[in-house]
């Protein structure tokens, strides 16, 4: 029995949307819930069913895909969000990662690459580029804002191993090569990356609360 995973696609460019939809529909273990062209359409879909995978373009005519990711994550859903981007530059991707996305996929990638990325995501791995790894290293360098008076969730830092993985990524090594260098499997490397993304999400949330406290928007209880 093949377990199928539902996918919701949000992309405003018709040609790309059609192509991605076609690629996903071809897979037997993936089921396309819908292909939305705007935030509004996507929200209507999400109100009905939460997909297993949310593939979302960032620049939508009526808003940013980052907002959709945040909304879905805020509902505590098990949905894995993935960003569709042309360049995969870290400025774009990191904003989505902070909102809770678990990776990104390049729009012009080959069919196999796109399907592989979705499968990797479902298997607990996350793609990453050297630029994003570099950004994350910088991001985790400073001390994390800890929740006041014990309340709230602990803000995690990077483990030694996660740090090593990021440093090797920055130098351009592939998951496979990093696995060989560190004596672990490539899959474990991608799992590390996914954990790092999780920590980034918690951290950016804590930072937002911290900043709000600093500005007096939220009162500490």
């Amino acid at each position, binding site marked *: 029995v093949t377990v199928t995973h539902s996918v919701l696609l949000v992309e405003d460019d018709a040609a*790309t949307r059609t192509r991605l939809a076609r690629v996903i529909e071809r897979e037997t273990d993936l089921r396309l819930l819908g292909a939305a062209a705007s935030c509004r359409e996507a929200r209507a879909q999400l109100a009905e069913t939460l997909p297993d995978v949310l593939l979302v373009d*960032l620049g939508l005519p009526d808003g940013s895909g980052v907002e959709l990711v945040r909304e879905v994550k805020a509902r505590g859903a098990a949905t894995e969000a993935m960003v569709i981007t042309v*360049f995969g530059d870290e400025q774009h991707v990191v904003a989505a990662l902070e909102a809770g996305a678990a990776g990104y996929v390049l729009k012009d990638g080959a069919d196999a690459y796109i399907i592989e990325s979705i499968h990797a995501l479902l298997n607990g791995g996350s793609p990453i580029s050297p630029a994003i790894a570099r950004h994350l290293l910088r991001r985790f360098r400073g001390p994390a804002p800890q929740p006041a008076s014990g309340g709230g969730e602990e803000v995690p830092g990077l483990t030694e191993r996660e740090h090593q993985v990021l440093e090797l990524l920055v130098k351009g090594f*592939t998951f496979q090569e990093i696995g060989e260098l560190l004596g672990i499997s490539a899959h474990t490397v991608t799992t590390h990356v996914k954990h790092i993304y999780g920590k980034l999400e918690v951290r950016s949330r804590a930072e937002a609360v911290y900043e709000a406290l600093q500005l007096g928007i939220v009162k500490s209880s």
Partner: protein
Amino acid sequence: VRWLTLFAAAAATWLPIVGLARLVAQEAPGAVHQAERTTVADPRASAAAASWRAVTLPDDWRETAPGVGEVWYRLPFSAGASEERLAVYLPAVAMNAAVYVNGRLIGTGGRMTEPVARNANRPLLFPIPARALTAGTNELRVRVVADRTGNGFMAAPAVGALDVLEPVERRATFVRRTLLWSVMVFRLVVALFTATIFALWRRERYYGWFALSAVAWVLAELNLVVVDIPVSVIAWTWGTAVAIGWWGIFAVCLVSSFIGLVRPRAERALMCAGVVGSVALAILAASGSALFDPLAVNLWLTVAFGASCYLFRGVLTRLRDHPDAIEVNVVFVVALSVVGLVLWDLLMQLGLRPRGGLTVPPYGAFVAVVGMGWVLLRRFVSALREARALAATLEERVRDETAEVEASYRRILGTERARVLSEERERILRDMDEGLGSQLVSTLVLTEPAAGIEALRPAERAEIQASVRAALDDLRLVIDSLDPIDGELLPALAMLRSRLQPRLDAAGVAVEWRVEDLPPLADLTPHAVLRTLRVVQRAFTDVLARGRGGVVRVRTGTDAGARAAFVEVVDGAAAVVRLVLPLAEYADAGASHVRGIAAGGAGGVGP
């Protein structure tokens, strides 16, 4: 040993004074000790010759004639036949004397009636006119008047050659008067100096106390040098006693403020006691009370001496706490010296020591003023030095702060510029991603066979797709080169690899990624990065275009001598391209940016 040294130092200050005292105490040649005296008012007028009694000189009335205001002395002397001039020398009388030879007045020391001329500290020399002398035995009579009854004194007079006695008198006068005046003037000058310092610098009160105590001491000593007083004897005595008392008070204040004891209440109490004492003595003097003399001389002076003992004790305590403070050591020696001299003088005042000798405390003043003056000047100079150092430190700090403010201003400017750049970059990237980038991807999608555009022949389709892909690749290079790189090339190379990796995998090209961290490179502007990335990318796409699979080795590192970094892409055995980049450390050596690019590309510029 240390205490012994200090006492020895104080004793050393006494040595010259003792020398002076001995000089003055030296008897003149021809001094006569045996004489007769009478207390009859004018023995010349009466026939009461029987009232003459033998007396041994020096004669202190406090013991031999209390209550008497005038005494006559007589003694015989023989005038030789020689032609030399004779003279009478009185080394010390209290207070004035008139000298008669054979009943003929040959001189006086000044006014003989109240207020009597004060000659207690003034040697008197009277040449005897030749016509007053008779051959053989002559009679010398000296009439001595005291300033107050019972306070008279007569030292042994000398009758002899004027040529012999004159140098003796001159020497005594120099010590007793000239030297004394000099010390007093010197003290007043120093007092004026310290008073000026105090006037300008009120915080350091001891300059003021020093000036006041010096002045009080000088006033008290006027008693020793002024012959004709402008007021009554009783008023003069009062003034002298009060001046000594105030000297004690000011000295206590001086020492306590100098050693850092701040006791304003004790100071005020002392002042009040001084005022009350002065007024009480004035009342006693004005009323002619018999209590005045014992109180003014005995009690008051003892109190003044007590004060000097108190300050001596204060200095002693201080010295015990700070044995190495040179100032305190000097002050201790000065205090010891002065106290010793005052004690010596007090013994004479109280009648415990014979009169007629040198009054020593004024000479000690020289030591005191030099010692204390040195200490105060030293403090003044060190305060000046501190102030100057402080000003210098302050200036330096202002300079530092200014530099810091400038630096932080530059930092803020830099941060602000970086922020603006980053925002602008973000905006451009967003626009490219959503606009141009998406358009290119759409074009790519539309040219795929699945898109259903049948009119395109496969060759045309491949060409369009290759062209669009090249455009996308180049856009990505541009975007990657925009990433802030902080002089690091490796992350940009890594990004290039991550982009090409899927295509390399698809073409079956294996990559040997042998990179190592590079030191910061010189002038790594986005443009320089882009040029470097283009060259490396072209090397990769050349390999891909050949479509033979195989292995591509990418190496980075520093050259021998480590003056430049290199990036090398090797296809099989031949170097496809080798880039040499100057290190930031040697940027000044004039190395060009991204050297080797001109020779880059396929074909290789092997080492």
